[in-house]
């Protein structure tokens, strides 16, 4: 009894941390009540599968944001890596595990290029990644002629197709969750994570306390490249096609998902599992609105609205915390 009351007391104290969970749950309950087929196992399967890619895209930007950087090339990296992996598998017959590994290395290389350019030129990452985004896309279009790779190995396609453990959960969801745990571990229990957050919170102060911020920022972009590449590979598995359309719509998602999840846009703070919930929430709204037969022209409107509400909610949280800490 004591434990339960303590748990409730903790939830009461930290209610703002559970806000997104309650909002997501409320949407699930609402759609379960109003949207035909929402709790259908097939729908749960496709919803979570879609959300898992959304979350991975959010993770990529979350890493950049944590160091007070931004990476507008996540979509281009995702598409480039997906098409590279598709080409390796379809044209060269490379086994898919090796193709995936090489794809992630390509993502890391693209991230390294971004990192080096940002650090060496001292130009804002917004401008650099805007430029490299076009360059990466251009290279991809030139080398592949924008032709999708659709003859993919069964094992690769199974990443999105099959149930796991008898549950309507695609392997992509488990991959996303493991990446979430790894990122949580990196940010909460490794010196690398703490250094990234320190640089993100105040780069000058971090440098004055002896941190080599250039190196840390390059590492951040490499991590972004790896995770964006993974997102591209996962999206290719989800669509069973490694084509240039991958990543074209990631820009808004990449910022919205971590922002909804509570990650600070100005750096120095990440909420890994908030980002997971952010991705699930955007996936849920997209799916639920479609199921409710509300004209799907409203989907974008609702997503924008929820982003505004999330940002407003975040502001309220901060005001509340400031008020309570003053007391």
């Amino acid at each position, binding site marked *: 009894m004591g434990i339960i009351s303590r748990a409730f007391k903790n939830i009461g104290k930290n209610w703002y941390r559970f806000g997104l969970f309650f909002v997501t749950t409320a949407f699930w309950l609402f759609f379960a009540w109003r949207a035909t087929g929402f709790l259908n196992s097939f729908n749960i399967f496709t919803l979570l599968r879609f959300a898992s890619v959304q979350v991975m895209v959010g993770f990529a930007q979350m890493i950049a944001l944590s160091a007070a950087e931004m990476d507008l090339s996540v979509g281009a990296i995702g598409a480039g890596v997906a098409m590279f992996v598709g080409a390796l598998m379809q044209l060269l017959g490379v086994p898919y595990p090796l193709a995936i590994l090489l794809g992630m290395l390509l993502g890391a290389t693209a991230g390294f290029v971004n990192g080096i350019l940002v650090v060496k030129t001292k130009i804002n990452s917004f401008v650099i990644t805007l430029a490299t985004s076009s360059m990466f896309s251009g290279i991809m279009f030139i080398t592949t002629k924008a032709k999708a790779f659709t003859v993919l190995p069964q094992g690769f396609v199974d990443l999105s197709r099959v149930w796991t453990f008898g549950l309507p959960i695609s392997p992509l969801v488990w991959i996303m969750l493991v990446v979430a745990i790894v990122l949580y571990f990196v940010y909460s229990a490794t010196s690398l994570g703490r250094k990234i957050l320190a640089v993100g919170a105040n780069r000058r102060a971090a440098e004055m306390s002896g941190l080599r911020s250039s190196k840390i920022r390059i590492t951040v972009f490499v991590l972004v490249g790896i995770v964006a590449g993974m997102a591209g590979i996962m999206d290719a598995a989800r669509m069973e096609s490694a084509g240039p359309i991958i990543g074209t719509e990631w820009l808004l998602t990449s910022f919205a998902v971590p922002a909804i999840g509570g990650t600070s846009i100005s750096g120095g703070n990440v909420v890994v599992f908030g980002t997971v919930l952010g991705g699930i929430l955007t996936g849920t709204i997209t*799916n639920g609105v479609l*199921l409710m037969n509300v004209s799907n022209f409203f989907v974008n409107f609702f997503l924008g609205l929820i982003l505004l509400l999330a940002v407003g909610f975040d502001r309220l949280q901060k005001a509340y915390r400031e008020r309570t800490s003053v007391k």
Partner: protein
Amino acid sequence: MKSGKSTFILLTLITVMAVLLSACGGAATQPAPTATSAPTTQLKPTATAQTGKPNFSKIRVAIVPGGPHPYFLPMKPGLADAVKDFGLGESVFKSPAEWKLDAQNQLIHSLMAQGYNAFGIFPGDANASNAIVNEMVGQGIPVVALGGCLNQPTKTSFCLATDVAQSAYLGTKALIKALGGKGKIVHFTGFLVDPNTQKRINAVKKAVAETNGAVQLVETIADVDSQEAADQKINAYLAAHGKETDGIITTAYVPSTVAATALRNLGDKRIKMVGIDDDPIVLNAIRDGYLVGTMVQNPYGQAYVGAQVLAYLKTGCQPKADAPHYIDSGTLLVTKDNVSTYKEEVKTLTKRISKTFVDKYLSCSK
């Protein structure tokens, strides 16, 4: 030392993630779930007591275009008429909000979850849409392509679409006739990356070649199927060469409306033009004498016949071994004479295709 630690963490991360992605590929424990309990089971046709016609009341057809476009609008009444005429269950025409494959796929998934068990789609991507088609067919949901085909190999049972080459050929012949068999013409058409554009270009050239030089194709201007490009290129062309041009053939939706508007603005009824599709701008231009005619496609019929075929496929019929995958949904020249009545002609054409389709192309166990 510290840098070595960071590198070690990075390398470990890459390896863990790669192993994870690869390992999950083999972690298949069960095939994908079905949308509803119904679609996997084949619905048996039962004859209604009064008419002896098959009972299709459990067939729920969804028609999903690739994105919003006026071309698809007649599909809605086409589907509604098919529901009425064939006694289909609740069916729906629904368009994604944007021309994005992912938006179309999500819409299809949501319709599957709601129990729609037969799909007519305009592929959002001629290659990549095969993935969702495979997913649907794997769950016992028949799919036909409407308005545009998927690239082979595909599991769509049929593709009902316009024979674009025939349409362009007939349109050019009509223009040549209006010109009195001689003159200089220009061709405005769609995107060169679209394989249909090349077919249209060749068809126009073929019709011109049949005049043995009496008609000259002065220029073919492609990549004008967007408002901005069409406005710029067509108006620039007419400003520079309008006086030397006797005829215009357009084989894409946007240049058709833009060229019709340009001729109206110029007040030029000397230049003869044959357009494509039935945008109100084009139809009004025909009524007012600025256009000779337009080649109307049959999205109404694609939806009507598509829904009918899907109902038969869902109740166990199969395409005959010798049935073609591509079926021409028909095309019609609309001129001043039939501009008020062409919709009825389209319906008659549709009924003609519908009447013979099952016997010609489907094999149904009695």
